[in-house]
C-alpha cells in the first residue's frame, strides 16, 4: 500500500448520525458516491440532509465518474501536525467534477510535491486504501490525467 502523507493524521469516520456513511462505503469499493436530489436533480456535496435548492429531503447517493479538473491548489511547507514534521512539502488540490455540476472535492495531487500545478488541468481519482488502519478507511487522491 502506498500513501501520500505519513501515518498519524486523524482517521476519517462517519458522523454518529451516519450522514456520510454511504460515501465512505463507496470509496472503499472504489466507487465515488455523492448525493443528488431526486426532486430537482441538484447535486449536493458535501453530505447534507436536505437539498439546498428545493428543500427536498429525498437525496440519493449517486455514483459519479472519478474524473475532475483542478480548480485551485496550495503547496504546504509548514507542518502543523506532529505526523508531518520533517516530511517536506505536499500539494492539496481542490477539484471540480464536471460529471456532477462541478461540485468540488479536496485531495492531494500525487507525484512530485514540487511540480507545477495547472489550474484547469484534468485529473483522475486514485483510491488510497488504508485497510490495516484502525478503523480501515479509503482516501480519494488525484493524479494528472
Amino acid at each position, binding site marked *: 500500500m502506498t500513501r501520500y502523507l505519513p501515518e498519524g493524521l*486523524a*482517521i476519517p469516520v462517519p*458522523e454518529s448520525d451516519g450522514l456520510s456513511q454511504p460515501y465512505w462505503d463507496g470509496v472503499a469499493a472504489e466507487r465515488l458516491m455523492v448525493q443528488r436530489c431526486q426532486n430537482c436533480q441538484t447535486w449536493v456535496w458535501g453530505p447534507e440532509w436536505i437539498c439546498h435548492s428545493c428543500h427536498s429531503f429525498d437525496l440519493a447517493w449517486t455514483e459519479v465518474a472519478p474524473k475532475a479538473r483542478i480548480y485551485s491548489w496550495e*503547496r504546504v511547507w*509548514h507542518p*502543523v501536525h506532529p505526523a*508531518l514534521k520533517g516530511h517536506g512539502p505536499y500539494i492539496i488540490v481542490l477539484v471540480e467534477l464536471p460529471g456532477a455540476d462541478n*461540485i468540488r472535492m*479536496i485531495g492531494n495531487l500525487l507525484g512530485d510535491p514540487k511540480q507545477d500545478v495547472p*489550474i484547469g488541468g484534468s485529473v483522475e481519482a486514485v483510491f488510497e486504501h488504508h485497510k490495516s488502519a484502525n478503523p480501515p478507511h479509503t482516501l480519494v487522491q488525484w493524479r494528472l490525467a
Partner: protein
Amino acid sequence: MATRTLRGQAAVAGIGETTCYKHGQSPDAEFKLALMAILNAAKDAGIDPKDIDGFASYSNDRNDPSRIAAALGTKELRFSNMQWGGGGGGGAAAVGNAAAAVATGMADCVVVFRSLAQGQFARFGQGPQVPTISGDMAMQAPYGLMSPAQRYAMKCMRFMHDHDVRHDALRAISLASYHHAQSNPRAVMYGRPLDEAAYDASRWIVEPWRLYDCCMENDGAAALIVVPAERAKDMPHKPSYLLGAAAGSDHRCGAPSHNHPNYASANFASVAPNLYRMAGVKPSEVDVLQSYENFTGGVLMSIVEHGFCQPEEANDFLVKDNLLAPGGKLPLNTSGGNLAECYMHGLELQIEAIRQIRGTATSQVKDVDVSMVIAGPMVTPVSNCIFGSEATL
C-alpha cells in the same frame, strides 16, 4: 416608517488595551486580561465601570459576561451578546451589535471586548491532534488541510490566477504593516523593520503565502465602550460615531468541502454594499482603512471587494507607497495591524480606527473624518464597519 439604520446613533467613547505579549507569554490569566482591558476602556471614557450594562464579543470568547459582571460589580446586566462564527470575522459585528443595543434602548453602555491567552488554551495555527475525525473536517484533515492558512490559501490562489495578481501585491500589504509598526512603540514588531529582500527570502508557510504574509499569534485583550450618540458629546474624547456596520456572507458561503459558489473571495460580496449603503459613504471617501490580516491574501481580496480598486488594478494599486500614512492613496493598517502590532483578534484594528478619528495614532493620517474597519476576511460570517467624525453626521 423611519429609515432603519444605525447611522449616527451610537459612538465609541472609550478604548482600552492591555500590553500585548507573544503567544503563551502573558503573565496574567485570560480572564484577568479581559478585566484589565475593560477597566482601561472605562477609564478612557471617564465612566464608572459598574455602569457598563452590556457586553458584546465574538469568536466564542471564553470570558462569560455574567462572570465579568459579577467580578466588576456591574449594577445591572442588560445585554449579553456573542456574534457566532470563528476567526476574527465578528470583530466589526460586535461593535455593530453593541451599537444596535444602545440605539434601540436595550442598553445604555456596552463594552465590546476580546481577550486571548493562548498559553492557557490551544493555538489557532496548529492542527487538531485526535485519533479520528468526522463531519466536514473528515474530508480535509486526512489530506493535511488543517490550519487557517491551509483552509484559505486556495481561495487566494484562485483569485490571483483569475486576475493575474502578482506576489508583489501581497508583499506590499505586509511591508505597509511593518512600516507602520516602526512608529508604534506598542507594536510587537517595533524596532524590527521588514524590507523587500527579507520578505522575499522568508520561508513559505503554504503557497501562495510566506511567513510575513501570516499574522502573529499574541496574548492580550482589548475593549471599546459604546454609548448613545447624544451622550458621547459630553464625554472626554472626541466621539467616533458609527456610520454603519454589516455582517454576514453571500450565497452558501459556508457550503462544506469548499463549495462556496463565489469561492475566490474574501466573502464581502454582499456585506460591503450593505455597509456602504447604511453609512452613506463611497470608497473614495474613506480616509484610512484597517483591514484584518489573517493573511495578506485576505486583505487583497477585501480591498477589491470593498471597491478600492478593480481586480485588474490590484498590481498597480497595491504598492507600498499607496498604503502608507500619512500621504498614501489608502493608508492601511496604520498601527501595524495583526502582522506587526498585535494579534488581538482584530479588535486592535477597531481601536486604531478610533485613534485615527481622535488624531492620536502613531502613524496619523491628516484630518480623518471617515475611518473604516474590515474584519476577518475569508471566514463566515465576516463583518465591517465605518466610523465618522462629527463632521460626517
